[in-house]
């Protein structure tokens, strides 16, 4: 798979990076990445993946653009309020990089459709906005043995990690085995969320995805990064797989 003259110019600043180069850029072009949620995290993640030239980007979202999204969801624009987010997202990607194929899944991820959707991709980015979807995505990615670039945000802070049990790393349920009771953890709508902080964390997801695809550097596998925007601090904790994890532990392998 070669690059035409336009692509060589478009990706020149990546190709010149020693850790990416021509081979890495080829891998990026061949990659198929699924992004769950075209919201505060999905917006920067999708834009940077598209700009990087990821060959196919799948986007799962069943929501419509609302005015209160636009403070942080930079994929969508004022004249798109009321439109499906996947339509708005596909338009933004097409404008940014016509070499990228967008597959829109205008649906909510469910136990019934999750495995079928994940099967079409090499990697999953979770930018969803609720615990049900987060636990579902983690299980589907682990079952499919595909890396999951996880992130979650609230108020002024975010968490980022690469969950990749197939490569010996832990999964989401190793860290958070119990789903918090509904209503215990506030959603962004109730608690608020800093727009630019969502941008930082969603861009970190794109960084980790590009590193995994291009096989560059050390992935955030087995580590969880906490970004505290209010304190202007980032801290990293090391996480090992839990042998008794129902998703990726010994019991799950029968």
């Amino acid at each position, binding site marked *: 798979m070669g690059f035409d003259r336009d692509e060589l110019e478009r990706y020149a600043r990546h190709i010149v990076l020693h850790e990416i180069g021509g081979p890495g850029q080829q891998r990026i072009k061949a990659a198929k990445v699924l992004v769950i949620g075209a919201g*505060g995290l999905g917006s920067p993640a999708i834009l940077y993946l598209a700009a990087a030239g990821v060959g196919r980007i799948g986007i799962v979202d069943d929501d419509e653009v609302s005015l209160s999204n636009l403070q942080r969801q930079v994929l969508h624009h004022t004249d798109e309020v009321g439109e499906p987010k996947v339509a708005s997202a596909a338009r933004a990607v097409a404008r940014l990089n016509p070499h990228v194929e967008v597959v829109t899944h205008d649906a909510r991820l469910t136990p019934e459709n999750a495995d079928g959707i994940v099967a079409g991709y090499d990697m999953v980015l979770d930018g969803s906005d609720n615990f049900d979807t987060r636990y579902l995505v983690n299980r589907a990615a682990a079952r499919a043995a595909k890396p999951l670039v996880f992130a*979650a945000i609230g108020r002024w802070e975010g968490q980022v990690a690469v969950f990749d049990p197939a490569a010996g790393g832990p999964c989401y349920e190793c*860290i958070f085995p119990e789903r918090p009771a509904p209503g215990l953890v506030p959603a962004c709508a109730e608690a608020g969320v800093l727009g630019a902080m969502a941008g930082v964390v969603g861009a970190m997801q794109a960084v980790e995805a590009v590193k995994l695809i291009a096989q560059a550097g050390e992935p955030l596998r087995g580590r969880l990064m906490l970004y505290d925007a209010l304190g202007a601090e980032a801290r990293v*904790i*090391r996480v090992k797989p839990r042998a008794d994890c129902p998703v990726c532990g010994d019991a799950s392998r029968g």
Partner: protein
Amino acid sequence: MTIILNGEPREIAARALDAALAELGYGGAHVATAVNGDFVPRGARAGVELNDGDRLEVLAPLQGG
């Protein structure tokens, strides 16, 4: 003794991690913990002793995206 809880110094009396969490007001909460940068699963907390100056991270799950 003084520990560093989520980057801030805190005085606590308890030594075992599970007791320290209860003392700090996290009893029964769905939180993840790390001591000096290493994750400690819930089941292992009773067996982990905190020392003066240890860094304790207590993470609540976030759901926003």
